[in-house]
């Protein structure tokens, strides 16, 4: 996978985005906005930068990736399926009764999910635990926690960051999906959580702010984080609903009702069936 070039990663991200949309459209409703904003980042991680193996998903030395903003699970599931963790057709069962793919990322049901999340603020703490485990056991793996900007209104996020900074967890990277929107509107209008950079620096993190849809910048920055001697933060400037005509950049894209017509307008034919 390391030979993946930037242009192939973009193509892969486009495919994953389509898979994600089709997966949500099949059920008719879902968290498309916050899934779409992190597709490029997930693609870069799972297809190039992270030390993972779909055939050995529990390897103790694998890099850990915790989607703390667990509602973006459709984006993660599409990425995992594309990467070969499970059959792509399973994506069509998202949220159906008795499904293996519940709306929020589930470690017990889905191969490749490193921790269950959905109750916001909790995944990042588990990720800090995983990073501490690596240091205790002198393992070389890196842990990434993907956190929403809205999610960062949860106090627990800052408790976790404080501990990671305090313990100098160089093997830990927090990734803020700064799509600037949450369910009730613009994050800045609901409850201001920015600026991230200065806050994270105060919490003893080395910070990088990049365009969250720029694959080259993502790859370069993950590389820097994996080599860092201190905890790192990547602030992704992203667009909620990225790549969807119907909801790009609109806060109401958090969870969207999808009609077959809307799906047809977004994609020319499905990629899963």
């Amino acid at each position: 996978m390391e030979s993946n070039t930037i242009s192939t990663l973009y193509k892969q991200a486009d495919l994953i985005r389509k898979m994600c949309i089709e997966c949500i459209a099949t059920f008719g409703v879902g968290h498309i906005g916050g899934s779409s904003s992190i597709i490029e980042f997930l693609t870069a991680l799972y297809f190039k930068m992270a030390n993972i193996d779909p055939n050995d998903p529990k390897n103790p030395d694998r890099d850990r990736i915790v989607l703390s903003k667990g509602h973006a699970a459709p984006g993660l599931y599409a990425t995992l399926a594309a990467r070969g963790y499970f059959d792509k057709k399973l994506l069509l069962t998202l949220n159906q009764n008795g499904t293996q793919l519940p709306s929020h990322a589930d470690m017990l049901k889905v191969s490749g999910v490193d921790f269950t999340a959905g109750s916001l603020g909790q995944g990042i703490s588990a990720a800090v635990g995983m990073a501490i485990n690596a240091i205790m056991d002198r393992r070389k793996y890196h842990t990434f926690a993907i956190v929403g900007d809205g999610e960062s209104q949860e106090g627990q996020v800052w408790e976790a960051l404080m501990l990671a900074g305090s313990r100098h967890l160089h093997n830990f990277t927090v990734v803020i999906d700064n799509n600037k929107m949450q369910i009730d509107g613009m994050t800045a209008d609901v409850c201001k959580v920015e600026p991230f950079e200065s806050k994270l620096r105060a919490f003893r993190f080395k910070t990088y702010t990049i365009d969250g849809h720029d694959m080259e910048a993502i790859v370069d920055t993950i590389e820097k984080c994996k080599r860092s001697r201190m905890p790192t933060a990547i602030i992704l400037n992203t667009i909620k609903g990225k790549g969807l005509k119907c909801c790009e950049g609109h806060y109401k894209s958090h969870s969207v009702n999808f009609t077959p017509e809307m799906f047809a307008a977004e994609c020319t034919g499905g990629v899963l069936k």
Partner: protein
Amino acid sequence: MSELHNKEMRQVYVDNLIKYSKLDRRIVVLEADLMNCIGTGKFKEAFPRRFINCGIAESNMIGVAAGLASCGKLPFCSSFTPFATRRCYDQIAVSVGYTKQNVKIVGTDPGIMAQVNGGTHMSFEDVALMTQVPDMIVVEPCDCVCLDKLFPQILKCDKPMYIRLQRKKTPPIYDDNAKIDLFKANTVVDGDSLTIIACGIMVHRAIAASMALKNQGINARVIALHTYKPLDSETILNACRETGAVVVCENHHLIGGLGSEVAALLMQNDVLIPMTRVGIGDRYGEVGKEAYLAEIMHLTEQDIVEKAQQAYKRKLANI
């Protein structure tokens, strides 16, 4: 008498942590700035790499523990009961319970044992909360021997667990020869007039009450119960069927506590016998020493005697 009774319960807890950590490399200890109260500093000295002080951030402590457990560690997280449970309940429910992570949560100073820390530090609801988490095992040893004998069984049990502990010395209940099974309640006083089921600090009061009752010709059977969930239905049902009346005693709210569970168990099994309960009413805690708090919250030996007399009188009236 066991030498363990000369120790404080926190010392027995930490001695066990250290003893078993020499062999069991999974064990790690997490604190939220109460290391010096709970005594885990000795563990930190022995295993500095396996000790994490999370600072005063219990929610994060539970999440970090869950992350460690997902990597194969066996975390013990401790705090005072309200901060180990209600403060971080959603974290326990989701990051530990829902994900089936083997995390042991230790709450000290349960109920009135928070004493002079007062109402803010008194949890009368922690057992009710924790038994509501699916698959959560909920345990409260009544003395140091009980804890010592339970500890290796706690390590072997691969389910999340809430362990309600006292910190200080406890009145002796068991001797070194006692057989204590994590999932079985123990009959500590035999009798056939009625059954007294007690847990935690109520066990020694129940034994004292049984002696007072004996002088009145009432032979109370006392069952010391250390595991609230799963409940040892067999021992409870047998005792209730054999004695025909029951008193349940707990250092916890009556609403949602052990008494409620025992009542439901009896009803479901058609054991329709007189029942009374000793426990804390619908109220908050307040500052005071144990004896004072037990008195105003009706948790004394005399309260048990009176409730036993009521149950026994009803039993006789029904015959």
